[in-house]
């Protein structure tokens, strides 16, 4: 060592070397790390640090690093990338990442692993799954994956294997707004935040749960166009801080305020009567029901002053139709999730903002867009289908109650895996194959998830880290990260058609594979190889574009290709521009729009403010209605969670760069409450209820209601394989009870807790 003054002062800086941990089998640390091989030129691709999947450009710098930036071709994303996206390289060559298949050699969850070859891994899985299939039927194996990207390949394997039991994470995250949209509007809608002049937001924290195009759109509307933002949220979040008005609403009472907004719109004659007459069914029943939901009534439930609800509703109606009530994302605040999301949609429908600038709209995919254009304005993508797939007679395990029928085809009721395993409801599950999903954190009632994993005959996990859930697997399959994968072209249409594609930036590190290849090779071993007739990803991409190589190359080189001009069917200026661009475009209505073409995939073909279909599925729920729910015991505090900008739910806590930014989640407590409990900031506390008990530390802050405590979700992992995350902070899933909400099938994210200083 060269001893000079600089060497001497090295000790004055903070230490850099991490403590040497016992090396984890299969990890990059165990297998060594060579230089990165990949493109020094920027490659257009798609991020996967969260589910927004922003378009990115990435390149390898000097064989040592990967530079990740946004893709400027995607205008609404502005070439930006968030902290998580920028940290993708840190995950890629993290020494704790698993890059070799593993076999459990100790008890489940004990953390004892042995490295094996892929062929052995496939062999063990095939032997076990085929044995279970022979003994108990293929349906006794559940397959689950984080939705999007390659999940279709796992679900295709499930179908080839013969199991109907495929699940996404939907009911632990976004299903609420999806199911409510299906019931009322016949399908998902999007928010035109950037053109909105008045935005009412019920805890949709777009400034921490960053969805790049929407986050940018809302900020742009607020700062450059003078839009007003009103936020109802129990916690002073970043979106609450950026709002013009923030109301610390009582947890779980959003539905009351939303219904009072609807009440005021109708009773004060502020709603769009022409729109309602033409496009809405069930208005009379709805109006009759909301008559009782006055702002004063809502105030008594929610703590939001009646006069403010009334004033805000008038301001909102004055800005309409270029105004919207954000229907939110992550759920569920209460078991009345379905009514809450429907009430939020209703507040939009009543002002007639559907297919208007600043309101809500349906995505314009190529097929639809071309119909209006009267020509092939945008190429359509073909969907590969495989003939002769086995017929599956068994019912899904979540088909025990007709009320959940809207979610069966949209991801299923994920947590029914626990019921089917532990209580054989409606029949016994014996195995679980999971990919990129972490139910230990997200499914609520962690102890019950552990019990389920221990009871199953066989568990397979495919992931990039040994997550808290993968820690209980018998076989761990290491997936290549998104920076090492090619995937199918993705339809990302908004107001006009758009496509983008994920491409490999770096040659695969270690002995990992993309999951589409993993499931294809496993199918071969299971004897179902004939259902995976494609050779590689390029075969699939070429099929999508109908062998149009130049189109494929264009999408690959530009990374984001959009077609035509934005189209909102009821926005005269946009429709005029559209018609001018396409000489064979559909003829306009008398008012210069395409309003008459607006249709809804509901039984009535209209927006159903009241629905006989829903009434049949779930008696008593045809009309949107308020029901009192009890979220906690009298002597408990509300416990709510939320997202933080530097982590993605339960997925990124071990990524070095992000763990360095935040590895712990303090529990927010109001000074009054903290005073009564004799707690100061930084104190060690216990947070507990009937479901579980966690230790953490307190953050005393006025940014939370006195009757509520808050923690960012995703921390507090309990498995030793996630060395940077284990035991740090409060594990939210260990405090949330196992409850399934009516109709949406959502699990529950609000409960009661007690706090004690320790």
């Amino acid at each position: 060592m060269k001893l000079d003054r600089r060497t001497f002062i090295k000790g004055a800086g903070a230490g850099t070397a991490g403590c040497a941990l016992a090396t984890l089998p299969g990890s990059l640390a165990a297998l060594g790390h060579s230089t990165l091989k990949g493109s020094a030129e920027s490659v257009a691709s798609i991020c996967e640090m969260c589910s927004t999947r922003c378009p990115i450009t990435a390149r390898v710098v000097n064989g040592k690093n990967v530079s990740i930036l946004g893709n400027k071709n995607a205008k609404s994303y502005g070439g930006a990338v968030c902290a998580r996206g920028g940290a993708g390289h840190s995950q890629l060559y993290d020494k704790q990442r698993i890059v070799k298949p593993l076999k459990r050699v100790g008890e489940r969850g004990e953390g004892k692993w042995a490295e094996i070859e892929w062929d052995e891994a496939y062999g063990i899985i095939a032997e076990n799954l085929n044995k279970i299939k022979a003994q108990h039927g293929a349906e006794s194996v559940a397959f689950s994956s984080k939705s999007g990207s390659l999940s279709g390949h796992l679900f295709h394997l499930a179908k080839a294997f013969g199991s109907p039991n495929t699940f996404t994470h939907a009911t632990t995250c976004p299903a609420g707004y999806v199911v409510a949209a299906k019931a009322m509007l016949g399908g998902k809608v999007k928010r035109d935040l950037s053109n909105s002049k008045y935005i009412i937001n019920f805890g949709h924290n777009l400034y921490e749960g960053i969805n790049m195009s929407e986050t940018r759109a809302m900020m742009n509307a607020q700062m450059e166009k003078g839009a007003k933002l009103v936020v109802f949220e129990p916690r002073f979040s970043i979106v609450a801080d950026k709002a013009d008005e923030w109301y610390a609403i009582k947890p779980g009472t959003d539905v009351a305020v939303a219904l009072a907004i609807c009440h005021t719109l109708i009773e004060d004659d502020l709603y769009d009567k022409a729109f309602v007459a033409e496009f809405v069914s069930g208005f009379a029943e709805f109006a009759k029901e909301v008559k009782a939901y006055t702002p004063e009534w809502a105030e008594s439930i929610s703590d939001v002053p009646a006069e403010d609800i009334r004033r805000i509703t008038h301001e909102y109606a004055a800005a309409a139709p270029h105004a919207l009530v954000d229907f939110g994302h992550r759920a569920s605040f209460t078991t009345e999730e379905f009514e809450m999301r429907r009430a939020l949609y209703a507040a939009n429908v009543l002002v007639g903002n559907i297919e208007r600038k600043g309101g809500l709209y349906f995505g314009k995919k190529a097929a639809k867009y071309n119909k209006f254009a009267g020509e092939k304005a945008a190429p359509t993508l073909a969907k590969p289908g495989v003939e002769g797939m086995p017929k599956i007679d068994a019912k899904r395990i979540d088909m025990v109650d007709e009320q959940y029928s809207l979610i069966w085809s949209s991801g299923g009721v994920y947590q029914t895996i626990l019921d089917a395993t532990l209580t054989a409801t409606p029949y016994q599950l014996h195995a679980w194959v999971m990919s990129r999903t972490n139910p230990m954190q997200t499914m609520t009632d962690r102890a019950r998830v552990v019990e389920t994993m221990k009871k199953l005959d066989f568990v397979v996990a495919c992931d990039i880290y040994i997550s808290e859930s993968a820690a209980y697997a018998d076989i761990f399959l290491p997936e290549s990260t998104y920076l090492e994968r090619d995937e199918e072209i993705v339809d990302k249409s908004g107001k006009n058609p758009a496509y983008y594609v994920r491409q490999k930036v770096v040659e695969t590190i270690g002995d990992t594979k993309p999951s589409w290849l993993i499931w294809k090779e496993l199918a071969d071993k299971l004897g179902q190889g004939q259902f995976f007739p494609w050779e590689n990803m390029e075969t699939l991409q070429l099929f999508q574009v109908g062998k149009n190589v130049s189109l494929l190359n264009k999408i690959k080189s530009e990374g984001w290709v959009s077609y035509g001009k934005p189209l909102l069917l009821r926005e005269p200026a946009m429709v005029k521009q559209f018609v001018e661009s396409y000489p064979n475009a559909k003829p306009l209505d008398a008012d210069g729009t395409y309003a008459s073409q607006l249709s809804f995939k509901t039984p009535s073909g209209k927006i159903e403010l009241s629905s006989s279909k829903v009434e049949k599925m779930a008696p008593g729920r045809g009309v949107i209605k308020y029901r009192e729910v009890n979220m906690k015991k009298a002597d408990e505090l509300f416990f709510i969670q939320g997202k933080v900008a530097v982590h993605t739910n339960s997925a990124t806590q071990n990524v070095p760069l992000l763990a360095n930014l935040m590895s712990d989640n303090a529990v927010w407590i109001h000074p009054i409450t903290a005073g009564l409990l004799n707690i100061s900031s930084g104190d060690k506390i216990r947070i507990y209820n009937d479901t579980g008990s966690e230790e953490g530390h307190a953050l005393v802050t006025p940014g939370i209601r006195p009757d509520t405590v808050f923690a960012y979700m995703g921390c507090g992992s309990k498995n030793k394989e996630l060395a940077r995350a284990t035991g740090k902070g409060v594990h939210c899933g260990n405090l949330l009870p196992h409850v399934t909400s009516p109709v949406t099938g959502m699990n529950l994210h609000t409960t009661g807790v007690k706090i004690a200083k320790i």
Partner: protein
Amino acid sequence: MTKRYVLVHDENKCIGCQACNVACRSENNVPESVTRLQVRIEGPYGNFPHLHFKYNRVSCEQCENAPCVKVCPTGAAYVNDDGIVSVNENKCVGCLYCVAACPYKVRFINPETRVPDKCDFCKDSRLARGEQPACVSVCPTQALTFGDANDMTSEVRRVLDTKPNYQQKVNLGTEPRVYRIPSRRGGIKA
């Protein structure tokens, strides 16, 4: 006319998401234990329910009248022609005077190179290629504007001329070239 590179941080648009922090770390290979750039979310200040956060960008202020340069005995710390406060590694003897003199506490010893380090607007990498500094280019909400304030046609000049802004610790006479657009709620806590 010489360039005068400045940066404007709009505290209204900033959401404290740390995209800048991560991009800076990646671009400049900043070791884990130190940082060139953070946005600290401070507060909330005020009284419930009238609260506000302060989004405080903490990075080199690129002072026109830089204390770190004044105290450097060897000339290793210097102000470049473009106004960027820079470090000449070869001249540095590691005396730490500059670290001690910085009133903004944004200079540190890089544990790998063992010389003082700090934000330099990515001058040798991105700026040299004609690109914006990493933090500016990735910012999700366009809270950062960077450019030559001597160029009367530049965006950064327009922003400085049209929006209320302040600098930190101006009473010290350091004349920082990082400007801040104050949050429309709450006071200025410079």
